[in-house]
């Protein structure tokens, strides 16, 4: 659908509102925690990956995280909270509204720009990455969930570690 049609269609502006709401809830589950809520944003079978844009462009699937089920996401949330050693930090996502590329019976395909900042225990805030969410969102009984969330990051020289999901 072109953008003129989209803005004139009340149903699509409703979809836009729901997608933007989903993204906001999603980032706050990471920024404000607890991280146990994060896997709930995904369908049981899903793909979550954080991948460098240059890998995507070269056709390589290697990500810094790559999970294929909500169970794998729960494992990550557990390990991050109980079985990892890292300096405490605060994460802050700054989002754009989502660009809906395709809305059909299979779900919603959307792109969302995101800047993610990280604050150290000493209080220094630095850019962690700029990235784009490339999402496939499905309606599961009235609730939107991510069937796929690909966090494609530009900042291919990552500053230090990626502790939390993005």
């Amino acid at each position, binding site marked *: 659908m072109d953008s003129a049609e989209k803005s004139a269609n009340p149903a699509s502006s409703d979809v836009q509102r729901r997608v933007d709401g989903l993204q906001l809830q999603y980032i706050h589950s990471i920024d404000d925690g607890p991280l146990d809520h994060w896997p709930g944003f995904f369908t049981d079978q899903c793909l979550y990956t*954080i*991948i*460098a844009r*240059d*890998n995507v462009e*070269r056709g*390589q*699937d*290697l*990500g*810094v*995280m*790559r*999970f*294929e*089920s909500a*169970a*794998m996401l*729960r*494992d*990550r949330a*557990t*390990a991050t909270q*109980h*079985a*990892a*050693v*890292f*300096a405490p930090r605060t994460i802050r996502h700054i989002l754009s509204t989502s660009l809906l590329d395709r809305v059909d019976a299979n779900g919603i395909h959307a792109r969302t720009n995101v800047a993610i900042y990280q604050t150290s225990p000493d209080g220094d805030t630095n850019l962690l990455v700029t990235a784009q969410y490339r999402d496939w969102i499905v309606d599961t009984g009235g609730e939107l969930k991510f069937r796929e969330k690909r966090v494609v990051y530009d900042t*291919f*020289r*990552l*500053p*230090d*570690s*990626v*502790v939390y999901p993005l």
Partner: protein
Amino acid sequence: MGSSQSNDSETVARDSDVFAGIPSTRIPLKIYQEPDVYAAELQRIFYGPTWNYVGLEAEVPNEGDFRRTFIGEREVLMVRKAGGSVSVIENRCAHRGSQICQAQFGNTGSSLTCPYHQWTYDFDGKLLGMPYRRGIKGKGGMPADFDMAAHSLTSLRTTLLNGVIFASFHPDPPSFADYLGDKMMHYFTRVFDGRPLRLVGYQRQVIDCNWKLQMENLKDPYHAGILHLFLVSFGYFRLDQKSACYVDDSKGHSVLMTERGSEEGNEDTGGVNIADPDFTLSDQTLVQPRKEFPDDVTLAIQTLFPTLIIQAQTNTLATRYVIPKGPRSHELVWTFFGYEDDDEGMTTARLRQANLMGAAGYVTLDDAEALEFSQQGLEGAAEDATAVLEIGGKGAESNDHLVTESLIRGFYIRYRDIMGFERVT
């Protein structure tokens, strides 16, 4: 290449020798901070008689393909030449010193041209020509006696072995086989066995600590069953697994290895909590290895002096290359690979198991964090402050266990030697 070669036999004066009177079991914390030590390392190690990792042949499959990387702080290009061989040349124009290629990867056709004044070179670095060499209508241009042959790009000595490319700025490095030695060659060719390689993808991260701390971490099996709570809590690593660590004759290279499923069933874990029963992965596919090597080794980490790490942890195969960025920072480039004949299942296993490794890895995330804690901790330490390395004794020998810092002690035998510092007695 100028006057940058070190002279291995030249030692530093005693009053500026940070290792004067220091035993094998101590490391002066100054060497992780001092700009003078760092500058000497660049000359004596990175531009000295060492072999430095450049990349995998599979990264530049076609004629004219290049990849840009670093040796020390000097940028080099790995370029695929006509006829199939690969050359390594410095990415610095002989005219005014400009960087020639800006992209990380690309294809440059049949020659290299500097964007600033279009001086053009072949893939061995030979200067082919420049605009207005003869001037315009007899005015300007280069003098008649300008020697084209004397203005090539710096071309490095290059070794290609089973798909891996190494280079040296030094005009007369040892042969690569001698540099590695038999034991290290055995483990190198375990992974790089001659089968064509397939790239799986890259990760890069900047870690704010001295490059040597990164290398030490891969020579320090002592931390593995302690720091890495993921492995410990979920029961994937125990120091009582069958294991070994090896050093080569020069002491600069090393291998550490374990075999999974070889625990002897005793509970002597040296006081470290292991395998918390509350932790089990709800999705086990992440840690299901596929056997792919003839032996039972599930983890083999090889370090080659100065800055290459070759990782074979179950099915994640990767080179980790350390690029120094001043005394207090380095970049870590992870190149994950498999083999050209991998089936889809193996590729999936490699992608999945990569969750253990890299900038967000269940295991290596802890490493990057601990390394920054190290640098933070040693900053501003007293002039004579040292690190202590007495786990496993004082020597630098191979062992049939991992409760030892002998590989780190070995690294400093090699380091003190090449740096011209007082040798370990």
